[in-house]
């Protein structure tokens, strides 16, 4: 099983070559771009979730409580 894991790592030399050959500045900017894209996506998703949130709660125990107390 362990040997399989090692082989798995050795079977992707093309990707490995690309990752190793890329200059540090390209790597840095790729990471920064990834972070920006991720957080832009998170912002868009968050705003969309919030904007499409329910207009009213199915129930409110506070309101029930108040109503019960009022009666």
């Amino acid at each position, binding site marked *: *099983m*362990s*040997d*399989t*894991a*090692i082989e*798995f*790592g*050795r079977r992707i030399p093309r*990707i*490995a070559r690309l*990752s*190793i050959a*890329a200059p*540090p500045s390209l*790597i840095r900017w790729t*990471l920064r771009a*990834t*972070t920006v894209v*991720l*957080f832009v*996506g*998170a*912002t868009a*998703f*968050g*705003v969309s*979730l*919030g*904007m499409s*949130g*329910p*207009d*009213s*709660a*199915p*129930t*409110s*125990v*506070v*309101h*029930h*409580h*108040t*109503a*019960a*107390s009022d009666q």
Partner: protein
Amino acid sequence: MRSPRLTATILLVLVWLGAALAVFQSFVTAGLPIQIGVALVAHVTGMAAGYGAAIMLILMSRAPWLEYGVGAHRLARWHAWGGPTVIILTVVHALAAVLASAYAGSIDLMAAAKDVVGIPGLTSALAATVLLILVGIASLRVVRQRLSYEWWHFVHLLTYLAVALGFAHQLAGPDLAGRRWLQVAWSLLYTYAFALVLRWRLLQPLFQLWRHRLRVEQVWQESADVISVLMSGHHLDELRAEPGQFFRWRFLTGKTWRSAYPFSLSAPPAGDRLRITVKARGDGTRRIFTIPVGTLVFAEGPYGALTRRRRRRPRVLLIAGGVGITPMRALFEVIDLPGEDVTLVYRASREQDLVLKHELDEISERSGARVVYLVGPSTDTANDMSAHALNRIVGNLSDHDVYLCASPRLAARVRGSLMDRGFPRHQLHEERFSF
């Protein structure tokens, strides 16, 4: 560089301010006059739990500004306090909501519980609560000691699912429903929390695996239950790892890939090589002993602020207990002070437990730094680790920055003694590991 203590204080103020706003919103919903009762408890605890869950995700996201700025051990301490608090708040919220419903509808508790669970979106919230309780139980000391690390880790991962399941209920809750901008702010809190986790706990290590191709190069025995693992890769300088820091290592073999263990570097990074030293503590760490050369390594890090950059005083005292020697060994080699101003105190129960001793002696000989070995039973006065005894070893203790890494018990004893003696807290630097 801002001190971790200051960063932590600023962050804590912001977190508590957010908590106060979340709770305040519950009172706004309740309206005037405020009626103190189970209903209000349900709302306050619900908002606090929802807010706390997102904060816990952020604190454990491993974002570098948190890990370096605040310190991993402080984050772990906050998490150890905050995690159970969120679970308790969630359970109290659920119970109070049922009680309030029973009171409002003048029905018995069973009928009220049925009513509450029947509310749209509450099924997923109930599942979230059950999962959180499960995580809480698994984290109890008595249960934790009986669970393997792998199982505990798996159960702990369910927290993410629980937080996601609970989210829909929060947005539809009476404190947020219909308040569009609050719903947007709440959603952003959650999407940012998950984005941080995704960025730093998943993408970063995957990227590092792809870029650095870290592999086990050599494994050798240091003592009966301690091994060292030398790993090599590409462009490791880009990691900017420093002596004293640690990674969470996942060795990609069939038997070990599921577990990530925090181990400090036991030597300064040298070229494209990193070394760790591991003590067998259970089946999981024991499996690392048989890792074949060539195994790929998935490394998260570097983490921790226990570096030489923390030094402010003209002299340094490094204190290590047992396998806590690993970060101290790495620091011992690189502290940028004349040898006579550096002392390493290394405590072990038996002579054979003094791992890396030959390296320490070699560094000491080369740099002139002093190593003091305290070996034998702790009841022996010669092995005293009190502030008084340490002061006797190094001279003027207050002139020193103290770096500490030892078992929780020994670390607590040394810390307590130093604090009792009035040793300045900001001169004590330590890293505490706990799963």
